[in-house]
């Protein structure tokens, strides 16, 4: 199967690797060996981080966590096709552990987020990642704004926005898709179809034949890709990016994957998820799949995976320890509401500081 976004039928799922990873079914993306191993390593890291944040929540040390297990290839593959120096990534909430390509600061910032620290929303200047978005689909118009801005500046970048099958039912998706088509803005709409929106299955989410098919109403291509196939994700996102940067406009990419974990650490899928459905996806693990392919090329083995897991654990632990060691002044929440606080906020802050004794002789507060 060749990859032509204009011709892609939204009913066909684009794949590069067979489901078990044993053979190539389409031309793989042109990547160096190092680059494809880096993709594998990032997926392993995302899986390790996922386990760590899940456990930290269970221990009462971290906040509610939305697991990425099973969807690593969707995110890692997509960002592998982006240019971190030029392209924006707008996550929903499940993606940040898989955005290592955008720099180690992303995981460190996300650790602060899971810790409940306000700096968890502040990816450092220069890191083109928007804060985690809880309001479903609200980040999609933001992506269009960023993409519109890049085009006005004549900068050859895109905005790649992640959202789920559930978020595709929100008005923001339709409004942004429609206006993006009108503007021809360089946006990649990346719909992560993981089968479930908490307890709502696809059949209750849409009567459309696919999520990609919705692009027809916007006037730009929609394409379905196997979200558990990292190489396919890279090919599709790279093609969509090239098209957008070249002035061809947006693409809607539906990554078909499966949420192997609960919606969040607060969710219990036993109440709604047929066990056989999850079991059907167990043999399609994205890490196993790319691993088998790379083993065939002599680029991967159990030893390398163990080393990658060890390095990932060390990185995640360091990020978490740093987050746990990061303090915050109790009145920090006054700091960034406005560039300058209103007179009433000044009064309120002074009252809080007085009540907490922050201005006494032993006060050690900064912000």
């Amino acid at each position, binding site marked *: 199967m060749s990859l032509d976004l204009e011709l892609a039928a939204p009913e066909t799922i684009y794949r590069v690797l067979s489901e078990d990873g044993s053979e190539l079914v389409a031309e793989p993306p042109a990547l160096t060996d190092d680059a494809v191993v880096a993709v594998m390593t990032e997926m392993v890291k995302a899986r390790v981080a996922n386990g760590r944040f899940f456990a930290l929540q269970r221990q009462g040390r971290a906040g509610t966590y939305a697991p990425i297990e099973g969807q690593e290839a969707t995110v890692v593959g997509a960002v592998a096709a982006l240019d971190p120096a030029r392209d924006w990534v707008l996550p929903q909430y499940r993606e940040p552990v898989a955005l290592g390509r955008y720099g180690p600061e992303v995981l460190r910032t996300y650790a602060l987020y899971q810790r409940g620290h306000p700096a968890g929303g502040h990816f450092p200047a220069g890191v083109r990642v928007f*804060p985690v978005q809880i309001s479903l689909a609200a980040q999609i118009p933001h992506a269009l704004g960023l993409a519109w801005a890049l085009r006005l500046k004549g900068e050859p970048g895109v905005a790649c926005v992640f959202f789920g099958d559930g978020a595709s039912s929100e008005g923001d998706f339709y*409004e942004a898709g429609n206006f993006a088509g009108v503007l021809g803005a360089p946006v990649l709409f990346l719909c992560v179809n993981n089968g479930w929106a908490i307890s709502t299955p696809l059949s209750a989410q849409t009567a459309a034949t696919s999520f990609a098919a919705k692009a027809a109403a916007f006037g730009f291509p929609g394409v379905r890709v196997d979200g558990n196939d990292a190489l396919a994700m890279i090919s599709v996102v790279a093609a969509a990016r090239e098209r957008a940067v070249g002035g061809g406009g947006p693409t809607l990419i539906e990554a078909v994957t499966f949420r192997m974990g609960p919606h969040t650490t607060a969710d219990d899928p036993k109440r709604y998820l047929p066990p056989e459905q999850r079991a059907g996806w167990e043999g399609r693990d994205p890490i196993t799949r790319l691993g088998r392919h790379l083993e065939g090329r002599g680029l991967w083995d159990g030893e390398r995976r163990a080393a990658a897991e060890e390095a990932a654990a060390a990185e995640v632990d360091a990020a978490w320890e740093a987050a746990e060691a990061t303090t915050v002044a109790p009145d920090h929440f006054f700091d960034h509401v*406005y*560039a300058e606080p209103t007179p009433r906020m000044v009064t309120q802050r002074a009252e809080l500081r007085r009540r907490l004794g922050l201005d006494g002789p032993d006060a050690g507060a900064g912000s």
Partner: protein
Amino acid sequence: MAVMTLVEAINHTLHQEMERDGRVLVYGQDVARNGGVFRATDGLLDRFGAQRVVDTPLSEGVIIGTAVGLAAEGFVPVPEIQFLGFSWQAFHQIAGQLARLRYRSDGRFDCPVTVRAPFGGGVRTPELHSEALEAQLVQCPGLKVVLPGSAADAKGLLASAIRDPDPVMFLEPLKGYRLVKDDVPEGEHLVPLGKANTVQAGDDVVLIAWSAQVEVARRAADVLAAEHGLSARVLDLRTLVPLDIEAIVAAVEHTGRAVVVSEAPQSAGFAAEVVATICEEAFYSLEAPVARVGGFDVPYPVGMLEEHYVPDPARVVAAALRVCGEAG
């Protein structure tokens, strides 16, 4: 100085600010080719071109949502919502996103966005064209809420709003677009956000208002002087966030009596906030309970009924007489 209507002052200021700063973008429904349904953006397309003056689809949510992304990339968006009642279709983006970009990014992003929208009623519009939603916006920390009542203030406040690093809801009096007409300074004219204006001095009672109700209060003050021998001060708040608490307190300390005039439904409206502020900060200066004159706790009515809903000078006069201990 030049005499301008309020909408002419808006148009003039948009030209000046777009000229001054190439990052300023104007977009919204019918703003480019048509120059806005009130002509507030007339001429901008010809002068600044289709890259900076853009007609959008009828999508309030994405009009506000794109402003967040444009601002994060360094632009200064000045989107228009055609009527404030339509902003409910963007309220999730206004309250949950635009207001919070700086906060939720812990200070990474400035959000210099000015959302313009016609505010209030009095011109017999269809449903949802005449809303006074200022209190809902004040309840969204991160937003500034600005309501000019004169053409000169429309210029000075709009220029300040566009240059402000935070998102501003700039609410223009629908009824005042062509009715309000006054001297507008040419050239640079900035009115700081957060400073009320004493429109008229007076000693017996202060009438506190904003937007189109400033003119209603002023006319009431004329009646109080001419027919009742009472000297009414008129205080135009101009911005509700930031609120000029000092000016409110100073006025009440001077007069000892106050009437707050607004056109929103009364319960939990911004007038209640003003009254609460007076109670907290100037209670011992009060000679009488503070009165509110406003809309009623009903949806904004249709044209045949709106004259009974929107405050008029007679209702303000009656309230002022009541707080002054005279039969109203």
